[in-house]
């Protein structure tokens, strides 16, 4: 019987990462979509960096940054009594950074497409900026949020390089599906590798199918931030 611990661990990691990124990525994306600051371009490039860097590079720096001998690492040890490297917490930190663009980019695009018109309309109806965000922007950007959440979740499930560098291969702690598959292949247990791989393929496909299907359905000609004039 195949060990399903890596599966639950992976889902747990993807869930925690997505929730954290939803809180972290939303304000970043909002700022990027609305700001006229000269810092916009550098920040935009910085948030996209995980897309283009080899995961090993990211993993290498994270390993150094989080090691108990570094400032951040020792601080973490002093408050939690546990090292960030080769731990589930460390994996969460690494995944949040690694998957950041998958949350920020779809959200920023969705926020930009809302335009200033509905925001002004809401302000003229006495809605505060925060109220406007939750009662107008979020519903108008529901597709953007769905895309961002699904992409972040699926992408976190599929990560390998960063996890290997930062988390290693500790059963029940850092051994996620992609690592387990790698290990199965290394030990020539192809049947188990097949099972997990095929499961991942199906899962990713179904997730994207749902996302695209939803986008398509609500993407009729009359949909959008209500900017018709006629």
């Amino acid at each position: 019987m195949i060990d399903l611990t890596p599966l639950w661990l992976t889902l747990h990691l993807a869930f925690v990462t997505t929730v954290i990124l939803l809180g972290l990525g939303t304000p970043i994306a909002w700022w990027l979509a609305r700001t006229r600051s000269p810092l916009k371009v550098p920040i935009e490039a910085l948030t996209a960096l995980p897309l283009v860097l080899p995961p090993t590079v990211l993993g290498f720096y994270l390993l150094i940054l989080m090691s108990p001998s570094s400032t951040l690492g020792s601080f973490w040890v002093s408050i939690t009594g546990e090292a960030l490297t080769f731990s589930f917490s460390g994996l969460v930190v690494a995944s949040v950074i690694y998957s950041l663009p998958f949350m920020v980019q779809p959200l920023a695009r969705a926020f930009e497409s809302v335009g200033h018109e509905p925001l002004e309309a809401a302000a003229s109806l006495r809605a505060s900026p925060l109220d406007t965000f939750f009662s107008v922007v979020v519903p108008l950007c529901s597709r953007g949020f769905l895309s961002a959440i699904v992409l972040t979740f699926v992408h976190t499930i599929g990560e390998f390089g960063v996890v290997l560098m930062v988390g290693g291969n500790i059963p029940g702690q850092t051994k996620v599906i992609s690592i387990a598959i790698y290990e199965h292949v290394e030990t020539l247990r192809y049947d188990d590798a097949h099972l997990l791989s095929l499961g991942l393929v199906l899962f990713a496909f179904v997730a994207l199918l749902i996302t695209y299907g939803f986008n398509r359905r609500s993407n009729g000609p009359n949909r959008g931030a209500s900017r018709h004039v006629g």
Partner: protein
Amino acid sequence: MSVDVLDLNARVRLSDFELVIDESLELSGVTAVFGPSGSGKSTLLRTIAGFEQPQTGSISCAGEVWFDSAGGINVPPHRRSVGYMFQDARLFSHLDVDGNLKFAQKRRGSIDNLTVEHVVDVLDLGALLERSVDALSGGERQRVALGRTLLTVPRLLLLDEPLSALDQARKEDILPYLENLPREFNIPTLYVSHDIDEVAHLADRMVVLANGSVKAQGQTAAILERFDLEPYTGRFEAGVLVEGEVTSHDDRLHLTRVDLHGATLTIPMAADAPVGERVRLRIRARDVAIATRPPQGLSIRNVLPGTLLKIVIEPENGTAQTIIDVGGPRIRARLTLAAVEDLNLREGLPVYALIKSISLDSLGNS
């Protein structure tokens, strides 16, 4: 009773345009902000609402400071008690019509007994409530937007060319609702328009804007009478507005008689204006001719004796603009230069104004 004012003293610089304004506008009735495209009308409204920020100056509404560059005050748009109705309606597409109305009602600060039901009733929105906003026609969208804005019970209503995106038929669907606003809700209104007919129809007072500055402000009738503003108000449409009282209807001749402080005019039957009602009539300069002797055998019914008050010759196009005092109201006539010379017209001469046509503009709500 003193009337509250909107004090505007601001310099607003946008990328390719500057608006400079220093005016006090009375907060009562309907004030039109009139001018050609690009004159700064929308910028003015957006500045009042807080969507544009002046570089320098101050804005206060009924004594409440909304902006003051010296004092570092800039009240954000959602805390200014203005209702802004946009040219493009800007309904929320994730809510149905009812949802859009309730959005406004839920957020209004003041305790007010204006109900959704009342607004729905006045604007005939009942049949639309359950509809998606994407299923509305242009005119319906504007009506919903107007209702939504009214439900915030603003201190000041800003209407930014609410009719400009509509074709003529739809405009005529909406106009009666706009006419009714002062009577039904009594909210001081700034009404932006580049259509002098709309302004003459709806506004008690007007502000004339051109190239980012105010050229004139005052009673609509007084502004429309001024020659020097024609480059801005449009000469072809020049004319006057006169107010009078309906004195009788003649069913057989299908006529309505209107008394203008002494002079009586007859207009085509206006049965919906009861005797005693105050009405506003529009007389265009090109519809008025002048005679120096009492005319006889004439088909024109409205002939008023008066005095030629003023003649302004426009040599470049061979015309003359004149003002005739008919014992109270003043009427403008546009004549040819040749006529002025042939009849030897001069200021102070007793004349007869022959009015070919008159349009009934709005039912008196002033």
